[in-house]
């Protein structure tokens, strides 16, 4: 087999595995969310379908797939079908440049736990996630329903506002690392200071501020509580996907959770050392253990998401906009200046 065809085969296998794992992870994130929120509110949560409700996500997916798929009469048909696809594909795409683990050797095979290491990784992520806004805006527009249109507009205004502070907070990380490739950013975070403190970016002096601005804007970007204005059930009855049903609704749902997972993965990669962990174990575990550290950091972020959802009430829309433009944008601008001064002083 030539080198190129084995490359194609390997990449296809990787892509299929990643998509399958991502969808499975989304299903079980919904289970985790329902269970944790329920316990926060002193309820049981899903407990009937399977042991501790573990089969509930599968039942939910089957139900979603077998529901009637209606296209409302007033909708713009083509855009109505296109919108979930435009939302879903870019959301999943940003996972391609994130490294899940170290290069591993299984027998004679060398496996790299990353679909592709672009030299402009972060720029690529920003490019594709911005396309996701079109899915939401188009979905709201194409449904031709008052609630959907308002939800779509709100959502796009919110997403573009918080994208600014998201981009600015990443600039500070780039000042410290000096590369856009996520693989290299993770490599730079290996090792420890004084043998105890891991060399993660979060422990480099001003970067905890950029982590704060990054993560707050990321919660807003993914439309999660306390920033879930686009969906605000009690005023907009689910916002831009009010008119969607069955698998098309399912795709918007998938998109929201995939966004949560990718945003957590990016935060892990940029600030928390990616797949680096306290130990890489014996030789036979070298391939798998980095993957384990990476996944457990993501799960920690997801738990934080769920915790905020269970704790904080929703913002009002003017508060949301004021918070983004009058607090986060100036703070992250100031942080860029501070970081550049600190880096210049160190050099």
């Amino acid at each position, binding site marked *: 087999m030539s080198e190129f065809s084995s490359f*194609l085969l390997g990449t296809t296998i990787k*892509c*299929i595995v*990643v*998509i399958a794992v991502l969808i499975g992870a989304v299903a079980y994130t919904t289970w985790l969310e329902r269970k944790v929120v329920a316990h926060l509110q002193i309820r049981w949560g899903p407990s009937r379908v399977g042991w501790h409700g573990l089969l509930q996500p599968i039942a939910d997916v089957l139900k979603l*797939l*077998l529901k*009637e*798929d*209606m296209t*409302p*009469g*007033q909708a713009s048909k083509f855009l109505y079908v296109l919108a*979930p*696809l435009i939302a879903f*594909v870019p959301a999943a*795409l940003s996972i*391609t*440049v994130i490294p899940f683990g170290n290069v591993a050797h299984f027998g004679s095979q060398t496996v790299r736990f990353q*679909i*592709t*290491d*672009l*030299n402009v990784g972060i*720029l*690529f992520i920003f490019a594709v996630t911005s396309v996701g806004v079109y899915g939401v805006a188009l979905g709201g527009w194409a*449904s*031709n*329903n*008052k609630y*959907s*249109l308002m939800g779509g507009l709100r959502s796009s*205004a919110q997403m*573009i*506002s918080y*994208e*600014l502070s998201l*981009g*600015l907070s990443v600039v500070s990380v*780039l000042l410290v690392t*000096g590369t*856009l490739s996520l693989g290299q950013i993770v490599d730079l975070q290996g090792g420890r200071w004084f043998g105890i403190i891991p060399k993660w970016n979060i422990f480099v002096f001003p970067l905890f501020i950029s982590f704060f601005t990054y993560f707050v804007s990321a919660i807003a970007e993914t439309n999660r509580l306390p920033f879930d204005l686009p969906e605000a059930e009690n005023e907009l*009855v689910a916002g831009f996907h*009010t008119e969607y049903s*069955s*698998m098309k609704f399912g795709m918007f749902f998938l998109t929201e959770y995939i966004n949560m997972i990718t945003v957590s993965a990016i935060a892990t990669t940029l600030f928390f050392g990616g797949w680096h962990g306290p130990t890489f174990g014996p030789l036979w575990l070298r391939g798998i253990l980095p993957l384990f550290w990476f996944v457990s950091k993501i799960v920690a972020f997801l738990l934080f998401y769920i915790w905020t959802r269970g704790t904080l009430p929703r913002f009002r829309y*003017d508060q949301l*906009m*004021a918070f983004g*433009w*009058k607090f986060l*944008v*100036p703070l992250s*601008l100031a942080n*860029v*200046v501070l970081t*550049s*001064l600190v*880096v*210049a002083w160190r050099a």
Partner: protein
Amino acid sequence: MPKNYIPILMFMALGCLFPLVTLALLRLIRPSDPHKAKLSPYECGVDPVYQPRERYTVRYYIVAILFVVFDVETVFLFPWAIRYDVLGLFGLMEMLVFLGILVVGFIWLWKQGALEWV
């Protein structure tokens, strides 16, 4: 390195295929029973009185314009941040001047009330 982009194209193709194939396959087993009331816009059971695609508040346009201005500036910061170690003091001064001008504009916007959501 165009070879690095091939996996992304493949992932994109697979990502498009997955929902399209499921939608097409499930059409065979899914019930389909359209009804006039089901197909009408969702309005809590009341007939809609006017078209939803009306004019909406000018605030959304202002946010969009501000976004374009500031996002271009953010993109301008990226290459500077990557090459910061090479540019040195010159780069720092240049960027402080650039950000200074930008902050003056930002303060002006704030004073003008462009950031208020009324």
